[in-house]
């Protein structure tokens, strides 16, 4: 395979609320490790699974994000397993508390 998926893609990653505070950063550009980049893979690549109980694995063997954390790519809710491509904006969203 050729192109950004094979060589790694640059993704703009954003954090909000309690996740932003726990990580100590709000946004950064990240180059993914090789092909088939997904939000879950970037979650682990960035060490977000090591932040503490709120961000730790949910007991599924690392195959899911912790309970309540949702993913948006280019400001649309999506799956943690969705493919990422060059230039995407990826956001990890802690449990929503609007209204």
């Amino acid at each position, binding site marked *: 395979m050729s192109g950004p998926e094979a060589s790694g893609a640059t993704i703009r990653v954003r954090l909000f609320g309690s996740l932003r505070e726990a990580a100590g950063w709000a946004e950064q550009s990240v180059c993914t490790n090789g092909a088939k980049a997904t939000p879950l893979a970037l979650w682990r690549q960035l060490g977000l699974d090591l932040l503490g109980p709120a961000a730790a694995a949910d007991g599924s063997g690392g195959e899911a994000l912790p309970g309540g954390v949702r993913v*948006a790519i280019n400001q649309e809710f999506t799956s943690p397993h969705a493919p990422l491509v060059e230039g995407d904006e990826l956001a990890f*969203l802690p449990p929503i508390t609007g209204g």
Partner: protein
Amino acid sequence: MSWPFCHRSPVAEVHASDARRRPTVRSSLALAPLAPFQLVEQWQEEIWPAMGPAPAAMSLFVGRVRGTTTAGLPLEALELEHYPGMSERLLEQLARSMAELHRVEAVGVAHRVGTILPGEPIVVVAAFADRRGPAQRCCQELLEALKHEAPFWKREWSGGTGTWVAGNTPLAGHPPLGRPS
């Protein structure tokens, strides 16, 4: 698209074959304090002159900041963070989705962001319809959708310490709402 906190109004089912106009939606985010009744007047003035007589029913919900934290301590202020761009779009999208689901004539929704003091309005929702049932159900289910589907995060400030709210409470005294068919 479906939302987990909504179901179609029975009245809407009766009129499911009716050809209806697209509902009117007004949505906004506000950094300054909301004035709920001025907002309703504004929505009415914007919507009805071009549409004829106002609908027979309007359901209005005003949510205000509680004076205590989730832990029961005195609340100094509530900080509301949002995802710029996505939150504005989802406010409009959720309002339109609920308006179409319940076949109401119009929906207005306004949400605060930033620092909000106890007693200040945080959200205003109004649904306008020909019957009270769709208006009330649309208003309630849009509010529930906002609480769980729009990217807002609350932080409670008390004693100089900020604490992120872990999650919204379920709707008291109400069975879980189903998904639309």
